[in-house]
């Protein structure tokens, strides 16, 4: 429902992470095809998203140039590269998002 409202422009997501989470088929866009895929997973027609993982992790320090349109720029790699390590590195933080979860109700422990 929330994804459909976003697609129709009735109520846009308030976070770029939710927009990415909506992109179930990893097409770098949010469309009704994503809604269909999410429904198929919920209904058990798909065991998993065909072209996506259940969770995705992005560097927490990533800053979106346009938070309302995260796909307008390339998404960051889903890893952190540390070059020429010369001391303790304490900031390798990630944000996880659950594919299809746009109301933050996914259980992070599952």
């Amino acid at each position, binding site marked *: 429902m929330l994804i459909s409202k976003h697609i129709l422009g009735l109520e846009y997501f308030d976070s770029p992470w939710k927009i990415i989470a909506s992109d179930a088929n990893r097409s770098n866009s949010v469309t009704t095809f994503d809604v269909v895929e999410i429904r198929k997973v919920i209904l058990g027609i798909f065991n998993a998203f065909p072209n996506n993982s259940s969770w995705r992790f992005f560097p927490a320090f990533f800053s979106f140039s346009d938070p309302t349109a995260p796909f307008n720029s390339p998404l960051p790699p889903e*890893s952190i590269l540390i070059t020429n390590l010369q001391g303790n590195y304490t*900031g390798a933080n990630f944000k996880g998002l659950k594919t299809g979860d746009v109301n933050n109700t996914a259980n992070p422990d599952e």
Partner: protein
Amino acid sequence: MLLKTSPLPGNYGLYFNGWTRDTTLPAYTTFIHHPIGDIKKITVDSGSAVIHPQSINWQAQFGISPPNTHWKIIPDYGIFQPGSSGSPLFGPGKRIIGQLHGGSINQGDPCIINSAFFGRFDHSWNVGGDPGTRLRDWLDPNNLNPVSQNGYPQPIAATFTISGNIQAHWGAPMKNVKVQITGGAAATVYTDSLGDYKFEGIPGGSNYTITPFPRQRRPERRQHF
């Protein structure tokens, strides 16, 4: 000569050979090489190397080397073969004094070396007129004009800790997330109940990639009624 453009992994256990520009005739010499890509071999000449007083015609595109630019040795133990070229020649001080360019192998018995010619390190030090043709710009960047440099083992790399945290994007900590490090070291850890993880004892001087992995979804058993 190779210029390394990125740090060498600290756990390689390398040894950096020393070198000398001393032109005292070495009482004996040794060279270490990989003939035809074979495992490492050591060849020894128990006699003194000499400075070859004549020019050397390498044929074809390799041209002619002027007189007095090469060490000449005749090995007593071991030989050289294609693929050995470039191998370092060590004097009694265990420092590099030259690099193998070629030589003459007995046509009737390839296990007999008539002569082996090594480009003189001291000649390469300052040959030509620019950094592209001489060693001194690279091995003596501070222009201290050293005659020799002792070899040394790769310094033991300091180790460090890489740590981080994984949260759902709305701030909930994520526990039991598999996190892998690759690059100069490889390991896997899992986040704790606060979403924290850390890799300890990671050698410095290398590049690393940290990657979390989503939990594997167990195949669901479909029920049909």
